[in-house]
């Protein structure tokens, strides 16, 4: 079916199966590979994007449910030459090791900060629990979220 929606501010129309996950629409149809496949079952958070401002697991969102919505991916959050505050903090803290989960971590953190500008450690824990990092960069993710919060406040 033909589905129209907005990705990173640009209107897109794709012709895919109604139940194709948004993850694969982004990666295989639109070529936006910053959003990662990790588990396909909402267990790791690597595929996290924003849909109408909410953090969602794109592996669990069907294409037909994206119709008319606004999707923001890591590519739209900021660019290497124009970083979002969360990305700036991620670079300064040198969070990434393998980096494969970090698109999802950053999108989840950006959604948290949009609603909770100065999160406590407990709020960070609650928001980030679904985002797995096998390399174990959690201490740096926590520090980067606090640093990004300070940037956004300032």
């Amino acid at each position, binding site marked *: 079916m033909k589905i129209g929606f907005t990705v990173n501010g640009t209107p897109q129309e794709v012709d895919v199966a109604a139940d194709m996950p948004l993850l*694969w629409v982004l990666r295989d149809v639109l070529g936006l590979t*910053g959003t990662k496949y990790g588990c*396909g079952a909402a267990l*790791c958070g690597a595929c996290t994007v924003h849909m109408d401002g909410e953090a969602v697991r794109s592996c669990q969102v069907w294409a037909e449910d994206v119709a008319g919505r606004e999707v923001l991916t890591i590519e739209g959050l900021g660019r290497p030459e124009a970083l979002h505050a969360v990305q700036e903090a991620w670079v300064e803290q*040198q969070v990434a090791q393998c980096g*494969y989960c970090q698109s999802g971590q950053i999108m989840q953190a950006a959604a948290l900060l949009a609603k909770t500008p100065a999160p406590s450690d407990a709020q960070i824990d609650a928001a980030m629990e679904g985002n797995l990092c096998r390399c*174990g960069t959690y201490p740096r993710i926590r520090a980067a979220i606090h640093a990004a919060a300070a940037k956004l406040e300032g």
Partner: protein
Amino acid sequence: MSKATRLTRRAVIVGSLAVTGGLAVGIYALNRDWPNPLEEDLPEGAVSFNPWILISEAGITLMAPHTDLGQGIRHLQAALIAEELDVDLDQPEVTVAPGPAAPAYANRALAAEGLPFMSQDQGTVATIARGASARLMGALGLQGTGGSSSTPDSYVKLREAGAMAREMLKAAAAYRENLAMADLRTERGAVILPDGRALPYAELAQTAARELPPREIPLRDPTQWRLLGRPMQRLDILAKSTGTLDYGIDLTQDGMVHATVKLNPRPGGDLLSHDDSAALAVPGVSRVLPVSNGLAVVADSTWTAFNGAEALVCDWGPAPFLPEQADHWAALATALEGPPEKVWRDIGAQPDRPGVSPREYRAPYLAHAPLEPLSALIHVTEARCDIWVSSQFPGLAEQKVAAITGLPREAVHLHNQYSGGSFGHRLEFENIIRAAEIGTALRGTPVKLTYTREEDMAHDFPRQIAMARASGQVADGQVTALDLAIAAPSVTASQMGRIGFASAGADSQTVAGAWSMPYALPALRVAGHAVADLAPVSSWRSVGASTAGFFAESALDELIHEAGADPLAERLRLCDYAPARACLEAVGDMSDWGSPLPEGAGRGVAMVLSFGTPVAEVVEVHQTDAGLRIAKVWVAADVGRVLDPVNFENLVQGGVIWGLGHAVNCEVTYADGIAEPTNYYAHAGLRMPQAPEIFVRGLETGAEVRGIGEPPVPPAAPALANAIFAATGQRLREMPFANFIDFA
């Protein structure tokens, strides 16, 4: 055959991948052993000074052939070259590439830890054997990343590579300007003349290539370093923070099709029969192909291929190993009853009747489960094959691809990628073999193979399972004897067998991290017991030390408590290796060991020497209403020299979280020959709310420069078990601990 030759042959077989310690490689002619692979395909006007440096009008390319698995080694290799070459990594004309797979990039440090010498043994025989091992690894041309050996392998070699090119470039400038070499200096990719003029390397390269390489290359004293030892921004950090780094799974080619595999869930088992009609009826699925141990589905998208695989109906053969988990444990117990394969250490006389009766410890199989599932992009034509994938053994991978495609080895080109984690997973070739099989069947069409998470976990050759029995003796408040017997399947034999290497002799990995414990006990015996025919296993971050280190440091802790001694003070009293002592002293200081704790809290300490790097950890746990909380960890590690301090801290913290997480909640068990966890609903390790605060101190007292990717892992589990005992009085001798207590 001389003794030294026998030892080194043993090193190749036994030590092959799993591990290493640091090696004094020394000065050697950089181009002597193998041809420079960059010369084979030199762009017009380009000059290559050695296998690590290519300079042309277009810029300066530094080759970083060790595979980057997230440990940041591509950056560190570039920094080692740049330090002496006098280029900066932020210069737009400087690029860093993994380079082709080539024997010139042999890892000379890969086998040292497999030698039958303790890493703290700096005696003549051990030193000679290590030197011979390094030469032999170089002569074999085995390019490999693993065993925390990349830094020891690179530390001298890559700085020499940079210095060699710099000196030739200076000589060219001196010749051209009729100046003395001593009047010239180098900076940011240029030779600076006394009058301040800067001659870019690119302009000098052609002339420099005709200069004789310097005979001696004195390396700069670390006090003169500009990059190394200071905080550096990793090359990949911006791309990894913006979703712009392409991993292997992200790559595409024009005209590419997608594929996935459905393999016998019993690893190594056969496909007996199948029905692919439903799979072929899935819109977008074009073909179903046979591959080793199963089928591949070719389709127009990854998701379509996944759907096609799901629709396959297969009749699978039995597992070629014991199918039920209980039988694996029984086999280990039986092995412990029998004679040891090898007694690795036997000091003093064990008591006739141990005062502390035998205790049994268990460590389960564990998956690597890096977050990027196995994948590979391949394009096979009549004359050539290109494969884009992350591999820790790129040369061996090319050999395997050549055999499957029928192409000569020189026609196969592996383009090594940044990997989305590995932890040892990408030492194997499962995805590469299947990609080559599919690519050969579809000759002419590029194809990207992507495993589902479930297929990846089902075929994740796990960490070795292991079991130990320990007894000992205490007297007058001191530990006087420890007798430790460890049974495990040989990870080296299993892994090397799949590579195609023979295996011989007892596997040092069974006792790694235990047999070389630097404690001067009056009586110490460490024996390894072999077990055959269990599930196929592979190197998992820290390999044997992840199991044997847990056994050793748990058993010792029990004896210390039995003696009524303080766990840190008694370890310090026993420790006879200065860098390990320094680590224990450091974590005592950092954690304020012995200071009062709140009710229900406890601290535990452990120290394991693995890959030549001693690491001590103190874990503090708190009992809460929600369960046990791992609150804080203090870590001290001695790598001789901390080259990349920010990344060092990140890797240590990650290693601790890796060690703790798997000790808490991960295990792979088999039922009917099938690994039971299939996705991250289990086997996730720690998540953000469980992650403790981790304080890291890097020490530089050791004589050798060592790796840090793996050594922080082994002490984490025993330090946690010891802390849990201190807090609760409950002694946990089997992982994962969550099977026995609740965690917050």
